[in-house]
């Protein structure tokens, strides 16, 4: 093992240690399903993030594809937005099949 150039500091923090950026991990399972969020990893580069994601989240063949995205790049809706942002979709029952009446006994699909 190569000798460390850093001397051991009693609080356990090596000079030059810094927290690596955070990446969100998305795994695509076999059988054509969509990528799903699995969690996050810290890594210093995209390549390392992919390797870390594979080692942490895919030890049992759970993924045929992995995406890693810097957490800072994700734009998300906020809980405060919830009402007005999603509201237009919440009161339109005519977007659902149950809204429509069909004669009894007729199979529609």
């Amino acid at each position, binding site marked *: 093992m190569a000798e*460390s150039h850093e001397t051991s500091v009693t609080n356990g923090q*090596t000079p030059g240690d810094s927290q*690596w950026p955070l990446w969100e991990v998305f795994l695509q399972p076999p059988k054509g399903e969509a990528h799903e969020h699995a969690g996050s990893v810290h890594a210093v580069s995209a*390549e390392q993030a992919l390797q870390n994601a594979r080692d942490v989240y895919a*030890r049992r063949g759970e993924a045929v594809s992995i995406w890693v995205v810097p957490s800072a790049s994700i734009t998300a809706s906020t809980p405060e937005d919830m009402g007005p942002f999603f509201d237009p979709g919440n009161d339109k029952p005519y977007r659902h099949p149950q809204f429509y009446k069909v004669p009894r006994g007729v199979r529609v699909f």
Partner: protein
Amino acid sequence: MTNPTVHPAAPSEDPAKTAEFEARIARGESIEPKDWMPERYRKQLIRMMSQHAHSEIVGMLPEGNWITRAPSLRRKMSLIAKVQDEAGHGLYIYCGTETLGVSRQDLIQALLNGTAKYSSIFNYPTLTWADIGCIGWFVDGAAIVNQTMLAKASYGPYARAMVRICKEENFHKRQGYEIVTTLAQGTPEQRAMAQDAVNRWWWPSLMMFGPPDTASSNSEELIKWGVKKKSNDELRQRFVNLTVGQAKAIDLTLPDPALSYDEKTENWAFGPIDWDEFWRVVKGDGPCNRERLAARNDAHDAGAWVRVAAAAHAAKQQALSSEAA
């Protein structure tokens, strides 16, 4: 639009907000990182989740100890895979904890400088190969009981990490039980070794579920807020009920003369736990507390070159690609 993993500063506690929060919990809704939550909920979860993550990482030590001495290739492969899983489990939970607004660096520092707690079970030494079997059987067995409940915790990232962990934990318990079974059905020396390990690991495993309900200061709040769904004693009883039959099946005796089946409650009643030992070990005076902390610090220091090299490699790749551009 805000960064999904950084929580905005919580406003001073508003009784209306707290009431709405508790109504959400009562409706069985999942609390997510950017949702408003009482400061105390956040603190309790940071405490619970970070202790859980630290436990996974420290738990790698007593088992890692036996990798080079596993009696066969099959046992060695399984043990390495199990220890890798524990590292992964720790990482899932650290990531979940960070969503509550605490940095990985602070979490690691707290572990390394001894201020953070982790499950006391890992402060016991693994003296023989049979201990490795008992850890899988009892310790992972107890963890499964606890984690199955936590998979329904109100905090989304914690619950989801638990679901992921539960899937992987089953092999850990079977691996352990298979080891103990093999020894129990082996030579008289192997049987004796298995029985000795059972004698040493049984009571500390029962202590994994925490203090009795009457003495658990955190439980009431955690149950009110849907983080825990069952009490320490309920989970402990469930573990005992599951395990008694497993011991009988391989003719090993659990070291408790008071164990007896109660027909009415359908529970296995068990003897008194030595809570003095529990508190002593929690407070830092167990057989291996100092050794575990020293091992973690050594690992952190010895691994510094890896962190430095990774950063240097990435910087070099970055420089090369901007030169080429």
